[in-house]
């Protein structure tokens, strides 16, 4: 069992608080992603788990054993975790075989077994036959697989990955994404993955920890984080979102009513604590708006044909500008009057605050 528990972990670098009171837990065999923009603290958090950085406060436990505390940090070489770096860090002076075999040699595994295990893991990552090559003779994708193989061959219970796909081109990235997911499923290793790409996070993870400024804003599965963002910041980060001001008409939990753009009421789930008449912000994604015949009146200000859909900007009757995804068959002209219907069930309501 290799579950990771982070408890109130904080890390400061001088005046900068890189990680701020983070508490979360990763279950055994889970694929968890730390997602956020540059500087949000996700890499620092990963390195805290790996043992390269000492926490200023809090505790990191693996299977109940405390590995990192402000007083004592178990060094990385004794944690039995694996790590794949963004730059791969494949050693240029060793062959593929020597790179992959290194961890086994450190553990004094007998030579014959080393050979067998290296061969097996190279097959696993589709690098069979390249043992004698040097990294300089490999492509980026192949080097990345060497880094992966090197970490996997020692059979760690936890694998940490720091943006391993960001140096690859788009097509290769997508293919490697699939292979990584497959790999995790097959080996059952707990993956902790760091990325700034929300599509990648959604495709790979069991749970996503959305981070900003050192804090975890939300921690949940892809559906939850996308469709039920905990805050406006999360909603903003996980794809396109429209924020429409509204007013509570009836506060009744799941069957509440909110008025937008004057008197148009929409049935949306309300967060607890919402009072009748309260001003709120309704977050609705472009794909949850439709340009059917009924709904809020508005005028098209921009319509961009993107091949598989038409990206529309519509100004509603109260001046709010929203983005709508329309089917590619529809012909929309600038200035055209339309009606925007809202899928209330897909909306998230935030109680009025300037930013959260």
């Amino acid at each position, binding site marked *: 069992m290799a579950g990771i528990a982070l408890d109130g972990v904080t890390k400061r670098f001088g005046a900068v608080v890189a990680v701020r009171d983070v508490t979360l837990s990763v279950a055994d065999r889970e694929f968890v992603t730390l997602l956020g923009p540059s500087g949000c603290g996700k890499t620092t958090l990963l390195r805290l788990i790996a043992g*390269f950085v000492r926490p200023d406060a809090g505790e990191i436990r693996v299977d109940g054993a405390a590995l990192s505390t402000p007083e004592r940090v178990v060094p990385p070489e004794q944690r*039995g975790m694996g*790590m794949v770096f963004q730059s791969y860090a494949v050693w240029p002076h060793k062959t593929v075989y020597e790179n992959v075999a*290194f961890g086994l040699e*450190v553990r004094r595994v007998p030579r014959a077994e080393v050979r067998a295990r290296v061969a097996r893991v190279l097959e696993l990552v589709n690098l069979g036959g390249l043992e004698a090559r040097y990294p300089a003779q490999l492509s980026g994708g192949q080097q990345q697989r060497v880094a992966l193989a090197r970490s996997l061959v020692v059979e760690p219970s936890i694998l940490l990955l720091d943006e391993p796909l960001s140096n690859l081109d788009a097509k290769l990235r997508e293919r490697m994404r699939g292979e990584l997911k497959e790999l995790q499923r097959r080996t059952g290793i707990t993956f902790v993955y760091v990325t700034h790409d929300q599509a990648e996070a959604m495709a790979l993870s069991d749970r996503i920890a959305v981070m900003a400024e050192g804090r975890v804003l939300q921690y949940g599965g892809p559906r939850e984080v996308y469709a039920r963002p905990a805050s406006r910041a999360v909603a903003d980060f996980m794809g396109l979102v429209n924020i429409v001001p509204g007013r509570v008409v009836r506060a009744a939990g799941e069957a509440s009513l909110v008025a937008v753009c004057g008197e148009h009421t929409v049935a949306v789930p309300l967060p607890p604590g919402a009072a009748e008449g309260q001003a709120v912000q309704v977050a609705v994604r472009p794909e949850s708006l439709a340009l059917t015949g009924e709904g809020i009146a508005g005028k098209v200000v921009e319509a961009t044909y993107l091949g598989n859909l038409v990206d529309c900007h519509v100004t509603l009757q109260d001046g709010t500008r929203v983005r709508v995804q329309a089917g590619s068959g529809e012909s929309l002209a600038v200035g055209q009057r339309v009606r925007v219907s809202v899928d209330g069930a897909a909306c998230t309501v935030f109680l009025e605050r300037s930013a959260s």
Partner: protein
Amino acid sequence: MSAVARPATASAVRAEHVVMACAAAALTVLVILPLVSLGWGSVSEDGALTLAHFREAFSKRLYLTALTNSLILGAWTAVLSVAVGLPLAWAVSRTNLPARRFVHLTAVVSYITPPYLTAIAFVNLFGPNAGLVNVFVRDVLGAPALTFNVFSMAGLVLVTVPHTFPFVYLLAASALESVDASMEESAQMLGAGRWRTARAVTAPLVAPAVLSGALIAFVNAIALFGSQAIVGLPGRVFTLPTRIYALFDHPPQYGLASAMSLIFVALTVAALAVQRRYLARRSYVTVGGKGSRPQRIDLGRARWALLGFCVLVFVVAVLAPYLTLLAVSLSKSWGLAFWQNLTLKNYRFVLLEYDVTRRAIANSLLLASAAATLAVVLGSLVAWLDLRTTLAGRKVMDYASLVPLGLPGIVVAVAMIQFWLRVPVPIYGTLLIILLAYTGRYVPLAVRSASAAFRQIDPALEETARITGAGWLRTFRAVSLPLARPGLFAGWLLVFVPAIQELSASILLFSSGSMTLAVAVYNLYETGYLEPVAALAIVTMVIIVAAVALASRLAGGRPGMDRPTVAA
């Protein structure tokens, strides 16, 4: 960075060609022709081709011993330079050693100190009869077996290593700092402890740089005439530079000297070629992308042992020589009780009374400044032609300007003598030939500095000026030169410092009317004036340190050179 496409105006084309012609002419006179004369002199006797000189060089025991001794000296120096430079580099760049700045300073001061000063200082300390330490050990401690005779190969190595270990130190420190942290961290993640990681990952990655430093140490060590004359000759340890020097006693044997010089050059060039090929094959500079610096290792209690080692290096390389020279320069008569009779009369003597030293100081200041200026001008021309034009032959000129790197100082002198004696221009024995020797010797340093300075300037900055109508000269003056100035200034200093202390070439080119500082020191030493020699040595160091300090003050006082100046 592609070359700028020039509008085909006649004046621009002509200007480039003029510049190229001037640079080519200068390089020819400074480097090519003297070398050709050297080559010709080595295979000719009275106008006829002969291999007699080479035969003599390779058959006479005298010369073979010199060659062997040079090789032994070079090898030992290289090994010890690594033994000293690598731990120091590792201590400074990778550990939490206290006083890291002090260690770095030790290497820098060792580097800029003239090697012959260290030699003189150590003779004052470890001379077999009058060396202070030996006298102390023999008479006060009563242990004559513990005395150390500096006039030996061991002594020669001892006084040379302080000046060559900085090469290994600088290259190793730079390589250690540029190893991407993730290379070592990935080894740690796989279970390797600190030492295993250092052995399996760090060491192989920095090995090319360390070996490169060792080879450069070798090349430099064998070329130092001063220390080999001061320490080697009395101990009858003959080496190539001192043998070649001896060939200029009356009657001068130009042919043999030329042949030996070529052998010397071959040795140097071979070492440099090995260094280049080895480095090129395995260049492991690894910082890339989001690469970060490795964390500093906490040495715990071991750091005091390491600090002790660093202090030992400081004492041997810096403290002992300088304190000794200072003490000797302030004493009436050097001996065990020297402090009882302190005086400033030695300084008065060399600075105010003795005509020879006064002129030598003035000459060296003049020569070093002039040589630095000429070298930087020539270096700028060569670099500019290489980087900003597409003229044919500019690469050849660039290579030609780097040739002097493979020439030991004394070989430069022999080549100069061979050339200017044949040419009906009477500059032999004047300051001018020394100036040409300095300039030719150090032009590679200036070319490299200028090249680095110009390379940093984005061509777009110059192109913008051209598009708004400025001609190439105006652009150069208004854009390129100001932006390159700090780098060119650094280049000037890089030539000035070795030029003012230059001995290996000056020793063959000086005359009573064109004495230089280093030669004055050497001559004074040869005549046995211990105390004034030390005073002159300290004066030399003061000049060097003042120049370096002044230069860094002037260069540092130009902030914002990298910030674009937007016209208001």
